[in-house]
């Protein structure tokens, strides 16, 4: 049941031409036919049932839909599903599981880097990218805040998110 695509969300698009898309998401291959106007964020959530990726603003401002597309962070709300044919995507689901949190997830938990959790998937993806893609990430307040500047959080006041970035860096380099 859980793995059935949610047709209701894309029903309005049912009578439109569909374009085949094959894509690898979190290591798993998927093939679907989609309407050209389907956003990648809706494709992930409604077609693939990967609801970890959140949707806040749908115009690129809030950052909670951020995923990794061929290894680079990108807004899934500013990408069409048809564009990712042949691409590799990682969503927040790739970072860990409830029983085995990834280092960034663990750090957010320990530092109270989230309250309602709405923004969290985007922050987790951006922070993972920042710590993995920089050999020597700038861990000053200013450096971390610049790295986080594309993501909005209405709850935490950011203080604990900044702390979580430093904590995650420690956890990642502990062993």
């Amino acid at each position, binding site marked *: 049941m859980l793995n059935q695509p949610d047709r209701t969300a894309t029903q309005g698009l049912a009578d*439109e031409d569909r374009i085949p898309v094959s894509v690898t998401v979190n290591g798993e291959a998927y093939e679907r036919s989609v309407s050209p*106007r389907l*956003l990648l964020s809706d494709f992930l959530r409604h077609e693939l049932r990967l609801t970890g990726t959140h949707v806040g603003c749908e*115009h*690129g401002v809030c*950052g909670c839909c951020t995923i990794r597309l061929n290894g680079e962070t990108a807004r899934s709300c*500013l990408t069409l599903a048809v564009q990712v044919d042949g691409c590799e995507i990682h969503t927040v689901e790739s970072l860990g599981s409830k029983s085995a949190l990834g280092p960034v997830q663990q750090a957010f938990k320990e530092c109270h880097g989230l309250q309602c959790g709405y923004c969290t998937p985007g922050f987790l993806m951006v922070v993972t*990218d920042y710590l993995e893609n920089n050999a020597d990430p700038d861990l000053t307040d200013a450096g971390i805040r610049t790295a986080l500047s594309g993501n909005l959080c209405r709850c935490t006041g950011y203080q604990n998110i900044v702390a979580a970035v430093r904590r995650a860096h420690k956890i990642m380099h502990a062993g």
Partner: protein
Amino acid sequence: MKPARFEYVAAKTVAEAIDARSSFDDTVILAGGQSLIPMLNYRVAQPDAVIDINRVPGLDTISVDNGAVRVGALVRHRQLELSAEAFAAHPLLREALDNVAHIPIRNRGTICGSIAHADAAAEMPAVLVCLDGFVTAQGSGGERNVPASDLFLFHMTTTLDSDEIITSATFPALPKGSGYAFEELTRRHGDYAVAGICAVITPGPDGNCASASLSACGIAEKPVRLSAVEAALVGTNLSDDAVSAAAALVDDMVTNEDDGAGGRYRRQVARTLITRAVAKACQRAAQGRA
């Protein structure tokens, strides 16, 4: 917040994209999508066809030639920002790009897309204007170079024909002995600018200002060249007083009163940014000579 219906054309060559542009009434080019897709989502744009150029080979090259940098239509902001070769030849570009949006957006958005989109507050159009750069456009009538001074009409509008595609943008070399700076004010790093100033200053052997190029984004209905400020700087000794007096001439060019920054405030911001940008450019010119 979902796009209206459109035809999707995945062009494989520039020629195919131009053909598609002529065969529908209202078309848009999908490059990075970082300005287009928000407009589709809001349905501000409801084109008949979206022409995706992302799979056209050969458009993602950066070429450096004697200090000039040319970027193809698919060169992403982040790609140019991180290019060591482009940085060594033309460090102004990285300084300006650091102000463009946030990393996830720079990973996708293109320099040519930003120029075609022509937002009046966008940084790279202002850099192109400051350097007297140009774009190369292809359409059904062939290929032509359009200088920045003839390109921007007003906010989100260029002089390009509806069937034309920008294939590259060329940023001319910094003059020998010059210093550069890009300074801007935003409420949050990466937001569109309240005002941004691009400056290239060349001091003569006597230390006086031999030439000055300045442009601004955010202050008017398009990126503007600050000719009056330039004229007032040339020949001066670039002292604080001389620069402040020249900077005051920006006032008349500030016509944008939007976005919570009224005219008086924006004029003050523009003046301050000019003094900062000129000071930084002079300092760099001096370091370059040392």
